[in-house]
């Protein structure tokens, strides 16, 4: 490894040594790319109800529908082309997963760092609450909140953030407490810098590595949780199906052998989650100082 390489390049070279993680990263980029450019690769806009033909509903893969094109993966109960619905669904899943992960990152990270910096009663109060929430299963909290807020994209995002920010807060707090005791913070505090600057410009950037690890894990979790909630009928409405909604809709037809409505969206979901998890595993190993050679 070249010594003069930038930290980012060095990180990348080390990452590339793990072939499986590299493959997984490729899959993530491919899936995200395909989802972002979904209209280019799909014969149908699955959200345009006017274009759905009920006569095409529940057709097996390979069926040539009334639109004159082949339904590669078959159609769902509303006559949607599954390939199109999966790409659009992936788009929603990724969008919600990343938004929820990012907001939870910002909220939780700041909260943890502020608690560690403030100390005393504020710290005790914030961390008590977060510990309390962590002892409660995330899925139940998300379930209740999405039941309170109802169906929809932003409601779902709020539910996911509320059930996930605590993980970031816990991690940020742990890292920030360790940073707080170091000399450079003492030095920064002895200058007339405002405490806000010290928290956000000095402490928080140094807490990033563990937070990034939590973020990669939580984005995969958010996608999986979103699918679970949608599967239970609490997530996204049938008119804008995410992967979970597609799987839920197909579930009732599985007993009669129409496997494709559930299985293909499910495979897309699994590939995405597994790939993200493999990438995050590698990032975690690289950022973990205890495993450094």
């Amino acid at each position, binding site marked *: 490894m070249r010594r003069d390489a930038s930290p980012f390049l060095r990180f990348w070279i080390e990452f590339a040594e793990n072939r499986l993680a590299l493959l997984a990263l490729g899959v993530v980029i491919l899936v995200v790319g395909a989802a972002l450019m979904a209209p280019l690769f799909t014969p149908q806009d699955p959200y345009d109800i006017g274009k759905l033909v009920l006569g095409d509903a529940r057709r097996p893969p390979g069926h040539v529908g009334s639109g004159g094109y082949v339904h590669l993966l078959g159609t769902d109960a509303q006559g949607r082309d599954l390939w199109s619905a999966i790409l659009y669904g992936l788009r929603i899943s990724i969008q919600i997963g990343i938004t929820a992960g990012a907001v939870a990152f910002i909220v939780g990270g700041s909260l943890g760092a502020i608690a560690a910096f403030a100390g005393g009663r504020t710290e005790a109060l914030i961390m008590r609450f977060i510990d309390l929430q962590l002892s409660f299963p995330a*899925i*139940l909290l998300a379930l*209740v909140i999405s039941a309170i807020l109802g169906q929809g994209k932003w409601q779902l995002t709020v539910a996911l953030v509320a059930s996930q920010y605590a993980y970031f807060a816990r991690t940020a707090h742990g890292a920030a407490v360790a940073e707080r005791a170091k000399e450079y913070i003492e030095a920064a505090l002895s200058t007339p810098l405002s405490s806000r600057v010290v928290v956000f410009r000095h402490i928080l950037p140094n807490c990033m590595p563990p937070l990034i690890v939590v973020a990669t894990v939580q984005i995969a979790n958010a996608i999986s949780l979103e*699918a679970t909630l949608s599967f*239970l009928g609490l997530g996204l409405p049938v008119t804008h199906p995410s992967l979970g909604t597609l*799987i839920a809709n197909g579930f009732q037809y599985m007993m009669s052998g129409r496997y494709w409505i559930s299985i293909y969206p*499910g495979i897309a*979901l699994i590939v995405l*989650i597994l790939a993200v*998890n493999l990438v995050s595993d590698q990032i975690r190993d690289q950022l973990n100082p205890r495993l450094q050679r």
Partner: protein
Amino acid sequence: MLGFLIQRLLQAVAVMVVISVLVFVGVFAIGNPIDVLIAPDATQDIRLDTIRRYGFDQPLWKQYLNFAASLVQGDFGRSFVFNMPVLQLILSRLPATLELTLVAVIGATIIGVPLGMYAGYRPNAVSSRAIMGLSVLGFSLPTFWIGILFIMGFAVELGWLPAGGRGDTVEVWGIQWSVLTLNGWSHLVLPALTLSLFRMALMIRMARAGMREAMLSDYVRFARAQGISDSKVIFGHVLKNISIPLVTVFGLELAATMAFAVVTETIFSWPGLGKLIIDSIQSLDRPVMVAYLMLVAFLFIMINFSVDIAYAALDPRVRSGRT
């Protein structure tokens, strides 16, 4: 030890009060329960009368106090939908969930811990890598998807096992149990396996990490130097030392699994608490939701409490406050 016990008990009670407020306020925000209770063509008089009878005209804090007062007396109110006492409703559904959860967690422990210990004992063997691969899958696959795959494979394609329901039950002490009949087991296997896969992955990882760490420690090296066989070292010394975190996880997972059973029960139409809560969320059955959440919170707090006590009993340092 007594002081420790009292302190933890007081903490548990305080947390329970806070949760009851949060749950009450949270659930209060969902929809308008009056719409569920009264037919849309009811007269204004009936409407007002019902509102008064259920106490919805009072301010929120008063409603909470009434709720808390009856809660302490063991009265959870009546279900809007089933029109029966919520406590009775929940107790009738509890055994099914308890059975499923226990089988899942015990199964996960019995299978997961030995696998994890083996993977930690031989970290580089091909079989160990396969075990770890399995645990990555267990972590990654969402529960509902595992359930769908199982139904697809074992119920639809192979036709070996039923896809849902509880099967034959046997009544013991007035409670129906599926674990006591062969048919009940055939219904139980798939949902229990679905529910346990995540826990199993967790157990494998914990046991492996503990095992790897322990095998490098001085006491194991000493025991080995004395010529004690590996199996004696592992089962006589190592197992005892790695069991502390495993006991914690077992306890915590018991409650978490009950919560996760929501998903599994919905897929396999297992008539337990999880299915009840999903149904009651969809039909805005407030008393059932509140009671369910309080029950789960209570369970969590009790389990946390017992884990603390078990910790104190297993590890003298915790007891005396020297952590």
